[in-house]
């Protein structure tokens, strides 16, 4: 039968033939299967994102919701990280008589690594789980079906818009978080010593190079994409029942966080390889 494009054939678990695959542990096969499904889901996103109609309004609405709801959490955690990192680093630097380097050192660690990764992990927890749970409950209460019969492509309206908005919003949250963390660090420096606000930030920015900032910024888009993608994938494929919804939210966080680390690792390798130009 010739399916029209939007009627998806129901996914069936392929029956594995006796042979090579039986030798692999079951967990590994499940892992590969899942990775393949996620890649297919991402492929579907790229196919649909360029096709009109573009749901601009919905993207903006989601971006606002996602950003607004996470802003306070991101700010508080970043502030504490900046503060604690500075307090913890000080004694070591003092030992080497390098106390003056404190702003530079903290600045580099926050901008290059800690800010993006920690905030992305927080977003994976907060945003990934809420998208997973939201889409999961939309799925089990037939809201996704209802959209489809109302002349709407649900993948586009729900999934594409959310992935786009996390891809755009999470980098912004990370920039804000970095700034708040540096401010926390500035306060921590001033608990013991005394450095003016301008001097502190002058030191931070003088020590930062193009090769610190740009790769760190680029990878945040990938973090945002991965978090949105996994949240949507898990929610959209949620199993029936409330238990299924909980499980979607949970595994969205686990896989999302894991992906953040993997992307970070890859980003470091790429940056090193190019010596960053």
């Amino acid at each position, binding site marked *: 039968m010739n399916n*029209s494009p939007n009627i998806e054939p129901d996914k069936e678990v392929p029956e594995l033939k006796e042979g090579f695959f039986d030798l692999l542990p079951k967990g590994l096969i499940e892992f590969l299967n899942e990775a393949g499904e996620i890649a297919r889901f991402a492929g579907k996103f790229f196919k649909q994102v360029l096709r009109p109609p573009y749901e601009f309004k919905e993207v903006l609405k989601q971006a606002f919701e996602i950003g607004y709801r996470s802003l306070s959490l991101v700010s508080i955690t970043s502030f504490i990280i900046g503060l604690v990192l500075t307090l913890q680093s000080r004694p070591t630097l003092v030992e080497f008589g390098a106390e003056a380097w404190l702003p530079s050192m903290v600045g580099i660690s926050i901008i290059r690594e800690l800010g993006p990764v920690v905030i992305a992990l927080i977003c994976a927890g907060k945003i990934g789980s809420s998208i997973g749970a939201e889409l999961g409950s939309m799925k089990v209460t*037939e809201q996704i079906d209802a959209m*489809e*019969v109302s002349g709407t492509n649900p993948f586009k309206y729900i999934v594409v818009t959310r992935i786009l908005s996390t891809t755009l919003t999470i980098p912004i949250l990370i920039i804000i978080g970095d700034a708040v963390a540096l401010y926390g660090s500035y306060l921590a420096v001033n608990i013991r010593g005394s450095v003016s606000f301008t001097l502190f930030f002058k030191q931070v920015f003088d020590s930062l190079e193009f090769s610190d900032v740009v790769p760190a910024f680029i990878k945040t888009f990938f973090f945002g994409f991965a978090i949105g993608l996994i949240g949507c994938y898990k929610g959209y494929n949620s199993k029936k029942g409330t238990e299924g919804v909980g499980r979607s939210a949970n595994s969205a966080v686990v896989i999302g966080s894991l992906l953040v680390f993997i992307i970070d690792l890859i980003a470091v390798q790429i940056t090193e390889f190019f010596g960053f130009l």
Partner: protein
Amino acid sequence: MIFRSADMKNGPAVEYGEPVIEIAGVYKSFGNNHVLKDFNLTINRGENVVVLGKSGCGKSVLIKCIIGLLSYDAGSIKVFGNEISQLPIAELDELRARIGFVFQSSALYDSMTVRENLEFPLRRHGKHKSKSEVQGLVEETLKDVGLLDAINLMPSELSGGMRKRIGLARSLILHPEIMLYDEPTTGLDPITSGEIINLMLNVQKKYNTTSITISHDMHCAKITGNRLAIIVNGTNYSDGTFEELSIIDDPQTHPFFE
């Protein structure tokens, strides 16, 4: 199939219009779970057919195939003469605008108010209407289901019966020619389900709809349907009016009429 209306020589001779839904030899399975097996059913304009069957026998699957939410493995489903599985998406959407689907779980959009829920199909089906037209339609439809007061509430603030009625209103807003009801009265008290049944009868009268109603509720089936179809083992096992089916002595059919 053990019984067909036509078997009955002195059956009621009501005239209906041309066929609007033609289901012929439909098969649908999920993996090894063969849900529909050679299912046949034709519904003419103006007919209101109630589909009965035990839980899990594939009633919801059947109507989801009709509206193209699920694909079927073999056979043919024609709505207004169009083969559902072969319609391009744009035409399928046009066709869907002529069909109202009331979901088993009401399927109200949690993140939207009642008003936005009702506006959604109006906006999305691309019928460009002015603000006041949209407003007027939403209010008229809410009045039809007696819930105009709820217009600014969120779905989480509604009771089960109210959700059913809003779900019904949302599927009515485009004035469909066909209504598909998935268990409209299940889980409601007798009074509320009586109200829903009255609404369904009003809809039949006001919009002149053809309908398929899935129900376990024989009272609802008797009042809203002029024909019954019973699904057993994935096929249309027996098909006829309430009176015809209620008198046959068959172990698969009889339990529904006890």
